[in-house]
């Protein structure tokens, strides 16, 4: 909680501190509606021109278990969900024990005194505020004996503690339950007001966010999976096919629900192979289609992906990465699919790989993926991860009228057509959608066999060489058109941190913290992973250490997957890896500690004999 002003006396006499941000961690069981509390806080931030970022864990078994939701709200920029919490709201003993460690020294434990007592040893470490949340909730809703609604009651407590905007919050509660039985809204509001009205014992301090005025910034609040799905809709995608798997399923469920409004269809297939094949078929039929999966499902799609690479068929494949290998850690974050994304499948089968860095970026990257697929006639893999997928952020509402595009096929008849024209001026293959008439009467075939310019099979050694080069060179053209990534911090210094995907926020926060402490640390974040944009070598040249921060394993030789790609390309031993595989997002502190340690160690120490 960054204080940003002098304490002011609050109405009830306790100290009122103005703050610029706060990290609130909510811990309970998966049935407790913990995510709803976090959701309301995030939405409220969105409506208050604040920034917000959340982090949650999901129990991996269906019968539930301990669950937590952390939300960080800030008047300024919010780059991560926060290393440590200012406030821990906990419902049970186990929630308290497991999460107190994540609380700042002097932080506040707001607990349900019906279910737990503070640990006496921790009384000096944290400020404890007990409220019999369960029983007061039961009382508030009229004594049905059920504590359903205790999350909303707790939200009231939090609202009071942080002087949150009550009219906005009640609006949010009302909106959330519209369409349901009116008693539901009533009960919810009842719980909220009861919580808000509760006199917090020991509340020696309360907080109020600095007011923000971003000129009436109009924000939307959503999670990464939603942002991808809506980005695809904005991009004009009207067909998708998939098979359920966590955490990809959200995207397919949303598309399945929304596409019909746009005249589109999403098909749940019998398996991932059918799904990617159906999407490719639909792409061939004229309009870029989408498929996606996580973990095991991605492996299953590689054969078909190779066909799309060979036949040069546009396609968007979403990979919401989770902990691997195999079934692995389905509800944890990991970035260990970069290799399969770039190189998965037999043979040399080039494709594009993009990784969004934030929820907002999920929206725009989905559009970019569609457009690259179209422009370069190629499969594009959008590599997101469980961290972004389940993270909520607020971002400026896009200008949809300007952004939404129509990518329907053009059926204008042509005189003649060779999809795999070796002499194509831009070197790029173009397909005709079936339905298009060819005056010459010579129709193309799309194929996974090596082929001539019309798509007919050929065993000619020369043709295989020429076509392999054709398939590869278009990506060089793409690379030359990509922007060089921006540098966070100075363009020269001691350590350059390199990251991709969900690592961006913590990476930037690490740079801010380090630079504030006088350390010459900068960062660069790569969104276009395959092909890489040009200009990275110039950036790397400005630093003594280039440390690639990834959520994957260090492998046989001591570096992660992106580090391997960068080392191979630039052959610079100062490029080294910082990796971890605990299934959790990077903390800012972890990044800095590891970076300092690695830079301090012999620059060649990861090179084995």
């Amino acid at each position, binding site marked *: 909680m960054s204080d940003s002003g002098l304490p002011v006396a609050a109405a009830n006499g306790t100290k009122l501190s103005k703050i610029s941000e706060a990290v609130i961690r909510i811990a309970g069981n998966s049935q407790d509606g913990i995510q709803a509390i976090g959701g309301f806080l995030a*939405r409220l931030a969105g*409506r208050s021109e604040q920034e917000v970022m959340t982090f949650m864990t999901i129990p991996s078994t269906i019968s539930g278990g301990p669950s937590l939701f952390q939300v960080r709200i800030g008047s300024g920029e*919010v780059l991560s969900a926060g290393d440590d919490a200012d406030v821990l709201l906990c419902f049970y003993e186990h929630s308290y024990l497991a999460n107190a460690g994540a609380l700042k020294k002097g932080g506040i434990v707001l607990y349900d005194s019906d279910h737990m007592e503070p640990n006496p040893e921790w009384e000096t470490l944290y400020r404890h505020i007990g409220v019999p949340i369960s029983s007061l909730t039961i009382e508030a809703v009229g004594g049905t004996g059920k504590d359903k609604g205790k999350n909303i009651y707790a939200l009231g407590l939090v609202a009071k503690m942080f002087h949150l905007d009550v009219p906005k919050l009640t609006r949010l509660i009302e909106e959330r339950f519209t369409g349901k039985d009116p008693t539901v809204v009533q009960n919810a509001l009842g719980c909220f007001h009861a919580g808000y009205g509760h006199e917090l014992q020991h509340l020696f301090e309360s907080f109020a966010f600095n007011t923000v005025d971003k000129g009436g910034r109009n924000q*939307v*609040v959503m999670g990464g999976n939603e942002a991808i799905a809506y980005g695809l809709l*904005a991009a*004009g995608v009207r*067909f998708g096919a998939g098979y359920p798997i966590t955490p990809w399923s959200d995207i397919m469920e949303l598309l399945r629900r929304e596409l*019909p*409004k*746009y*005249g589109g*269809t999403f*098909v749940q*297939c019998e*398996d991932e192979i*059918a799904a990617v*094949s159906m999407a*490719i*078929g639909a792409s*061939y*039929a004229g*309009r870029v*289609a989408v498929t996606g999966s996580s973990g095991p499902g991605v492996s299953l799609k590689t*054969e*078909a992906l190779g*066909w799309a690479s060979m036949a040069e068929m546009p396609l968007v494949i979403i990979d919401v990465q989770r902990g691997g290998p195999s079934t692995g850690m389905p509800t944890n974050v990991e970035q260990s699919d970069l290799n399969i994304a770039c190189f998965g499948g037999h043979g040399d089968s080039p494709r594009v790989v993009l990784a969004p860095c934030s929820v*907002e*970026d999920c929206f*725009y990257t989905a559009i970019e993926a569609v*457009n690259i697929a179209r*422009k370069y006639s190629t499969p594009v893999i959008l590599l997101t991860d469980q961290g972004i997928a389940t993270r909520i*952020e607020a971002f400026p509402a*896009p200008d*949809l*009228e300007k*952004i*939404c*595009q129509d990518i329907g096929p*053009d059926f204008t*008849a*042509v005189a003649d057509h060779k999809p795999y024209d070796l002499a194509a001026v831009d070197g790029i293959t173009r397909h*005709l959608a*079936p*339905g*298009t008439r*060819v005056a010459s*009467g010579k*129709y*193309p*075939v*799309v*194929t996974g*066999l090596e082929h001539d310019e019309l798509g*007919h099979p050929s065993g000619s050694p020369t043709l295989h060489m020429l076509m392999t080069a054709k398939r590869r060179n278009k990506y060089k053209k793409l690379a030359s058109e990509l*922007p060089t990534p*921006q540098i966070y911090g100075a363009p020269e210094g001691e350590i350059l941190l390199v990251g991709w995907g969900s690592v*961006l*926020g913590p990476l930037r926060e690490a740079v801010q913290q380090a630079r504030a402490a006088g350390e010459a640390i900068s960062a660069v974040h790569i*969104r276009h992973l395959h092909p890489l944009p040009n200009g990275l070598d110039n950036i790397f040249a400005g630093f003594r250490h280039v440390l690639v921060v990834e959520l994957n394993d260090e492998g046989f030789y001591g570096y992660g997957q992106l580090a391997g790609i960068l080392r191979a390309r630039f052959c610079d031993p100062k490029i080294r890896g910082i990796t971890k595989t605990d299934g959790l997002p990077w903390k800012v502190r972890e990044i800095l500690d590891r970076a300092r340690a690695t830079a301090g160690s012999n620059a060649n120490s990861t090179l084995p004999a």
Partner: protein
Amino acid sequence: MSTLAIAHEALLPRTGLAAQLPPPPDLPEGDRKPLTKKETAADHPTWCPGCGDFSVLAFYYKLIEKRKIHHEKITTIAGIGCSSRFPYFVQAHGAHYIHGRALPFASGISLSRPDLHVFVFGGDGDAFSIGGNHFTHTARKNIKLTYVVMDNWVYGLTKAQTSPTTPIGHKSKTDIWGAADRPINPMKQAISAGATFVARTAATNPNHILAMMEAAMDHDGFSFIQCLSECIEFFPGSFDASIPRKGGVFNLVPENHDVTDEFAAYKLADEPFPGSFGIFYKKDAPTKNGNEAKIISDHRAKVAGLADWQILQKSFDRMK
């Protein structure tokens, strides 16, 4: 976190790509004549002389001619196998996909392009071994397309391994002492999976092939034809018992057979080789294409008059 600095805007070539296509040429419109074999034939088939597949191809040309299908409205799709080389031999939009997955590929076309005829050709291995599950699910979902399986009881392209329809006792490269596993019964598979058009024909009976293909094409839903097509190279003589000029019998499905009776069809499918030829089962049932069209029209009604971006705007407004 603000990520707009990433300049997404610059990355979007929002104008579309249509402008890059060559200008529409001057084509004679109006009454277009039926396509002759000369116009529909493409590459010379690479099949062995005497392969049954030639005849299936010839009658596909015939079908196109007879039914006056235009070049550009035909999509010929296949997996991998000798039989699956089909698309290269047809002058029309076509795709030679991967082994066993032609049906989902073709379903992607069928479900997004109601204006096209979607024909899928393949072999018994492609259809019932690696592709068996797609067969079941395309059938149960009743996706509108025609699937002709050129069953030769063997793997042709990979040279004489046991296929899922190889009869017990037949010697192949993977069962040199004779196949021991019970073969699949493609007709039973189709019927039990819920296929709504199930027919059986043979490459040696051209008129019958044509009749079956026509009926299949006219069926609104998933239509499946098992077409016996001899592999002269690796299983010569396989179907002699069904060829009158070789002393066999080509029995048509009995006239009194009720094609809407699933059990009667299942019984027909149980006959020992050579069994009967013709339509075993045919039933009108909702198609996936129709179901999805209905879902779409229900939803479109709710957003009538709105541009796509306005529909999306409504969703975004709910996320504020």
